[in-house]
């Protein structure tokens, strides 16, 4: 309440109170205003609207569905690999196809599923959670989706043409260099990486600005929901980590396309340069995937433990610490390369250090559950599954921080087991929890609880059956990335067990799909806030209207909805006939000024097409780059050139203002 008083006092332009008239007149006005808002914010009808949409919910939904489809294709590839490895000297897949498949599996899961799906959730949820009408640059969000989609489609088209990348998801040189990988397979991989990076960077910048400048009044920094905090940290990590991938893949592409020598030792280049640059991205990447999942967990636990989260400040600091430390770990992927011992010791220490903030998070969640009254619904089950699996994965991680252990286990199935425990446990289980938790918000209907429990137990059992044996296989010396092994090794039984586990896991995912398809049509109607949750996305209808909130909320406490009453104030005075939003100040979210957001436009789609044509063309000839720039320029003009209908809501042209108006507007705008 204090902040509310301060807001009104500090901003003399705001007039209060707004006096409500007679009740039924108000209701009529409200109905009228809702219709105007809907008219203003909705997408154009039909297919054109689908291609030009700038609604963050439409974009987010598509992004989630697309990423989930890539999760399924990556999963199918995983099953194929498991079938191949189920017995010694199997001939189901040949070595060449196996190489392509494990590369496609890793690339798909990292670049087309894990990063994009986390961003997709943020595109949908962050504007709702901070209480605004849309994401800050909606056309950029649309562009991000298209370029991501085209990148993924490109990868699979080349794969089906037998030109799928085959050098592993981290494409080490010299294997991936022009000498040992002639042909176009690695080029396809480098371009795919570029597509995903552009998509990810665009979203990262949007999330930062949406959170910093568009929060509902009263949502000061210390009241931002924890999920949103994780997305801020992750977005900054993307901004600083992704350029390393961009640079390393550009170097690789240039080495292969125009004969530069970055990774060619014969001409002064260096092969370890690739590993340094790749892992400078690749390690933060792990946390880019993991931290949003901790955000899901921090959202789900307080709601199902029915109490505010324990240790909010400690959790926020832990997330930030995770973000920083994750940039100091990359060399632990390179212990086997013979780097100086002092350097290795530093990275061992840093690797062990990151267990501390991760541990703080685990303890805060445990304390929340311990002191709350836990409801064991499906989202919560997935969170508990996350605890079990992720803690195991974290422990094997600490083991491998030790250089001697790492040297022993490097490139064995132990590593495969470790990172699947971390990534599936740390990201996929919370993600499925998030599906169950937010499905009612996305669709207006609940996912089935019975199928949900079946879904969880199949995935949990299947996962452990599939991946636990790999620890033992790794300790027994089975190397990763081999398409088969000999019967004398004695690895057959454990591999068969892992394959059975993989199939059970896949069955669990199938149950989820059935559950989702059933529930969309026949699920229980959810209502605005079926879980009695505390964050702002639950303050509006499910699914939310195109304008998100009829009146922007005013936040009066950390748990926005738990500290709210029907008498709580809201924001009035935003135009409903224009896409007008409220910009607030970064620290205290006090109202600052109003802004008109751009509406639907075909430019983002055209730009994505132009950029895709450029990238794909550049696989074959460097001349695609200058030619593509012309196309990109044209698309940008379509995107940004002023149109009459865009200007209806803007301030008048400067020449049409009086001298006095101009001076006043200029003074208020500084």
């Amino acid at each position, binding site marked *: 309440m204090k902040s*509310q008083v301060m807001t009104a006092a500090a901003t003399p*332009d*705001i007039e209060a*109170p*707004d006096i409500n008239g007679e*009740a039924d007149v108000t209701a009529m006005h409200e109905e009228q205003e809702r219709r105007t808002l809907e008219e203003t914010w909705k997408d154009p009808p039909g297919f054109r609207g689908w291609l030009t949409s700038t609604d963050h919910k439409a974009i987010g939904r598509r992004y989630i569905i697309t990423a989930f489809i890539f999760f399924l294709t990556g999963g199918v590839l995983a099953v194929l690999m498991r079938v191949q490895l189920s017995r010694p000297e199997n001939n189901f897949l040949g070595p060449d196809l196996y190489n392509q498949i494990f590369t496609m599996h890793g690339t798909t899961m990292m670049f087309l599923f894990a990063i994009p799906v986390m961003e997709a959730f943020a595109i949908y949820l962050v504007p709702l959670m901070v209480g605004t009408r849309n994401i800050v*640059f909606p056309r950029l969000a649309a562009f991000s989706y298209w370029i991501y989609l085209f990148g993924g489609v490109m990868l699979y088209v080349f794969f089906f043409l037998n030109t799928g990348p085959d050098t592993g998801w981290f494409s080490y040189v010299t294997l991936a260099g022009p000498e040992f990988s002639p042909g176009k397979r690695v080029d396809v991989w480098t371009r795919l990486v570029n597509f995903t990076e552009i998509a990810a960077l665009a979203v990262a*910048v949007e999330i930062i600005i949406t959170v910093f400048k*568009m929060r509902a009044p009263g949502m000061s920094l210390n009241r931002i929901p924890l999920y949103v905090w994780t997305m801020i940290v992750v977005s900054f990590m993307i901004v*600083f980590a*992704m*350029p*390393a991938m*961009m*640079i390393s893949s550009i*170097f690789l592409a*240039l*080495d292969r396309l*125009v*004969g*530069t*020598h*970055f990774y*060619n030792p014969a*001409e*002064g*280049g*260096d092969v370890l*340069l690739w590993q*340094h*640059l790749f892992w400078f991205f690749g390690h933060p990447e792990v946390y880019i995937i993991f931290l949003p999942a901790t955000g899901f967990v921090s959202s789900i636990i307080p709601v199902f433990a029915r109490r505010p989260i324990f240790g909010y400040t400690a959790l926020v600091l832990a997330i930030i610490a995770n973000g920083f430390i994750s940039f100091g770990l990359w060399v632990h992927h390179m212990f086997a390369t013979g780097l100086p011992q002092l350097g290795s010791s530093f990275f061992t220490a840093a690797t062990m250090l990151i267990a501390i903030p991760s541990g703080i998070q685990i303890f805060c969640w445990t304390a929340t559950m311990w002191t709350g009254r836990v409801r064991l619904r499906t989202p919560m089950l997935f969170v508990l599954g996350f605890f079990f699996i992720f803690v195991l994965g974290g422990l094997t991680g600490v083991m491998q921080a030790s250089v001697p252990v790492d040297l022993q286990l490097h490139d064995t199935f132990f590593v495969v087991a470790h990172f699947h425990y971390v990534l599936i446990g740390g990201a996929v289980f919370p993600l499925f929890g998030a599906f169950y938790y937010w499905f009612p918000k996305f669709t207006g209907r609940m996912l089935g609880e019975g199928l949900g429990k079946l879904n969880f137990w199949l995935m949990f059992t299947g996962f452990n059956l599939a991946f636990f044996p790999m620890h033992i296989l790794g300790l027994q010396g089975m190397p990763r990335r081999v398409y088969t092994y000999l019967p004398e090794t004695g690895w057959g039984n454990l591999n068969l067990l892992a394959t059975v586990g993989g199939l059970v896991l896949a069955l669990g995912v199938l149950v989820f799909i059935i559950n989702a398809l059933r529930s969309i049509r026949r699920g229980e109607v959810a209502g605005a806030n079926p879980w009695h949750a505390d964050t702002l996305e639950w303050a509006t209808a499910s699914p939310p209207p195109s304008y998100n909130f009829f*009146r922007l909320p005013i936040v009066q406490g950390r748990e926005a909805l738990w500290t709210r009453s*029907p*008498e*709580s*104030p*809201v924001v*009035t*005075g*935003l135009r409903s006939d224009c896409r007008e939003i*409220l*910009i607030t100040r970064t620290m205290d979210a006090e*109202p*600052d*000024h109003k*802004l*008109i957001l751009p509406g639907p436009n075909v430019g983002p789609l055209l730009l994505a097409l132009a950029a895709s044509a450029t990238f794909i063309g550049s696989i074959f000839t460097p001349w695609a780059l200058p030619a593509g720039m012309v196309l990109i320029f044209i698309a940008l003009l379509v995107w940004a*050139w*002023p149109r009459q209908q865009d*200007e209806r809501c*803007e*301030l008048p*042209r*400067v020449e049409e*203002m009086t001298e006095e108006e*101009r001076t006043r*507007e*200029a003074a208020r*705008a*500084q």
Partner: protein
Amino acid sequence: MKRRVDLDVSRLPSLAFGSRAVTWWGVVGFLLIEGTMLVLCFVTYFYLRDRVLDWPPPPTSLPSLLIPTINLFVMLASLVPVYFVERSAKRLDVRKVKIWMVVCDVVGIAFVTLRWFEFVALNVYWDTNAYGSIVWTIMGIHTFHLVSEVIETIVITAILFRGHTEPKYLVDATDNALYWYFIVGIWVVCYALLYLAPRFL
């Protein structure tokens, strides 16, 4: 019905410059990304320097100094019209913004033209050795930004001269100025690395 005290924002300004505006933050985000890319290129430069005895590796000769130094001063001089664009835009003085934007366009075209000769002044090709690869890549990335900045400036000039003088396009002009400052500022580092450093390292 209990009377609620709502927050009426209808009289807030609809225009804001600098860090109050979301577009300013957008440009800063872009600059952070591009800046990180260039910094990683600088790191690569020193990393590769460390791999060989002589820099540039013989028989590659040193880069020439004359044209790059002239262009450095042209770019530094371009900060003057950019500053005036920014200042008049913030005062909503469209006439002056238009004049200074045209000056920016001319200076921009001048240094993009000189850039061609700066590539020649490197005295090495990208496929000669790793030294050539990294200096060409740094030049390439910077030139990409330089050209897109000049094109953007010309487009904004065109928008203003087509009569779209709503204040939001003046905000665009100031954000464009921020991008310009970045490009000139980081070029000072690139210049030192590309043309001076090989003489000392």
